[in-house]
């Protein structure tokens, strides 16, 4: 396979190499060597990254709070099997993104803009910027909540987030950025540790896989739960991020099998850690958990400390800091990729700040803007955080439809177009996400304008 890869370029007549090409080809040379020497684990190590980052990046602050809230209000039933189901849906979507990126070597934004039309490209970028900005505010809030447990304030949260963004950008290499963020993302496992520390009833966890009891409460509450939990699993930024990162990493059609492993491992880890947050939250069920508003003060970590001890509270707080920090890095990156792709300028971690000024500026700028919001006295941070996932769910169907269109484009994808089964599942996912988001949006609006009662 690698020989084919090499021979593909062998006939190239004098390409103008850029620094980005050189950096990417160095990474590819390691993949080539590992493949040639049949070093399977080495090959896997070199090719994992975008899938795990997209999935664990989506296990962000608001998502983990949403899972813990589900557990605190409704217990384990229904949500323990529902979370893996949602990540299975996310796998279907993210596998398509990885495949499109590996085959076309282009990001989602630029492909939509060029292939479908500029109006659709800019719509997609607009949706992304809006949801990313709102979500980034929620990530800074998440870090703030985690730090509040250790008696540290909003200023520290802002400084920590921004320093991380600048630090990870400083290397001028995709590989370096990816490995640093990947290393940080593995600390998402703190939520699993928090679940162990609350000493759950293992039998009850196993029994909850039968989707019962179904959550009670009003129809609108159920829709909100579904919309926010879906928004905690599949979002527009993941689509932009994984496709662009796969292209930036230099993945090719030869790497699709490993890209699938990467995405699957990410989905499994994210589901396990998400269930960890749910189980930790469920420890509060019999201790007035339904009254806990996740982002109010130190919320969950403090409540866990009272119920399960200081270690559980501290681990959960550290988990929130990690979840927010990793998401700030991946969501800022997806915004930067989209900005560079839509404007049509250099957009790669392998480019220097001078040759990819917009990419670097957007990466830092969007994080800076979100950070500024949390420093505004009296800003409605709780409402912003809680609505971030819902807004992402409502806007998601258009991004998903365009993604399925690209994945079925024979002119782009050649033999790597979607199979019929992938299309069936993809369309079912779009219908489910669209219905849940729209039902919540319409129902809430009708209640707000008093056309229907709550």
């Amino acid at each position: 396979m690698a020989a084919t890869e090499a021979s593909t370029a062998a006939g190239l007549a004098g390409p103008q190499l850029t620094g980005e090409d050189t950096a990417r080809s160095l990474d590819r040379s390691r993949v080539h060597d590992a493949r040639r020497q049949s070093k399977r684990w080495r090959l896997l190590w070199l090719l994992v990254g975008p899938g795990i980052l997209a999935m664990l990046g989506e296990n962000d602050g608001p998502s983990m709070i949403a899972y813990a809230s589900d557990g605190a209000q409704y217990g384990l039933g229904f949500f323990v099997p529902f979370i893996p189901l949602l990540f299975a849906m996310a796998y279907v979507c993210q596998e398509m993104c990885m495949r499109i990126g590996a085959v076309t070597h282009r990001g989602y934004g630029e492909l939509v803009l060029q292939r479908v039309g500029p109006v659709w490209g800019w719509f997609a970028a607009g949706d992304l910027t809006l949801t990313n900005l709102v979500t980034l505010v929620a990530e800074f809030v998440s870090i703030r909540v985690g730090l509040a447990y250790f008696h540290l304030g909003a200023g520290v949260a802002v400084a920590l987030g921004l320093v991380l963004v600048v630090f990870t950008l400083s290397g001028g290499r995709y590989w370096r950025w990816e490995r640093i963020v990947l290393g940080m993302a593995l600390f998402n496992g703190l939520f699993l540790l928090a679940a162990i520390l609350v000493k759950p009833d293992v039998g009850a966890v196993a029994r909850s896989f039968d989707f019962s009891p179904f959550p009670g409460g009003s129809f609108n509450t159920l829709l909100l739960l579904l919309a926010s939990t879906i928004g905690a699993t599949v979002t527009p930024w993941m689509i932009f991020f994984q496709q662009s990162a796969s292209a930036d990493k230099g993945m090719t059609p030869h790497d699709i099998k490993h890209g699938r492993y990467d995405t699957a491992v990410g989905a499994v880890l994210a589901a396990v850690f998400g269930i960890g947050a749910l189980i930790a939250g469920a420890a509060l069920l019999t201790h007035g958990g339904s009254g806990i508003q996740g982002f109010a003060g130190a919320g969950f970590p403090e409540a866990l400390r009272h119920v399960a001890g200081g270690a559980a509270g501290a681990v959960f707080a550290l988990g929130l800091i990690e979840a927010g920090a990793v998401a700030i890095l991946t969501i800022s990156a997806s915004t930067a990729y989209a900005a560079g792709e839509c404007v049509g300028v250099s957009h790669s971690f392998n480019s220097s700040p001078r040759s990819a000024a917009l990419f670097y500026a957007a990466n830092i700028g969007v994080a800076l803007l979100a950070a500024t919001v949390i420093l505004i006295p009296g800003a409605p941070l709780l409402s912003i955080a809680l609505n971030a996932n819902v807004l992402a769910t409502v806007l998601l169907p258009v991004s998903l439809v365009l993604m399925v269109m690209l994945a079925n484009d024979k002119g782009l994808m050649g033999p790597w177009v979607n199979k019929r089964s992938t299309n069936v599942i993809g369309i079912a996912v779009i219908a489910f996400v669209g219905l849940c988001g729209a039902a919540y949006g319409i129902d809430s609006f009708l209640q707000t304008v008093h056309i229907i009662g709550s």
Partner: protein
Amino acid sequence: MRTVAHLGNGAKQTPGLSEQELAPRELFDEELIMYLERDQFVAATSQPVQRAALSARATVGLWALRVFVVLVSLMVIYTFIDQLH
């Protein structure tokens, strides 16, 4: 293809350097190029892909979905603002 002169090698301009001494550097650069696919170079990805011809049905469907999503988003944002009060 870039030559030794572009590699920042201190010996690049040195007269009298034998071909044998130059070869490894040049080979290194050639190998680097070979690790990328033809359509993976920045020069290639900078070229836009051809616009697809969308059917009228697909265009109408996309616009209908777009309008619907914008309307629902406005409802969510309105509800959000109302809740703030």
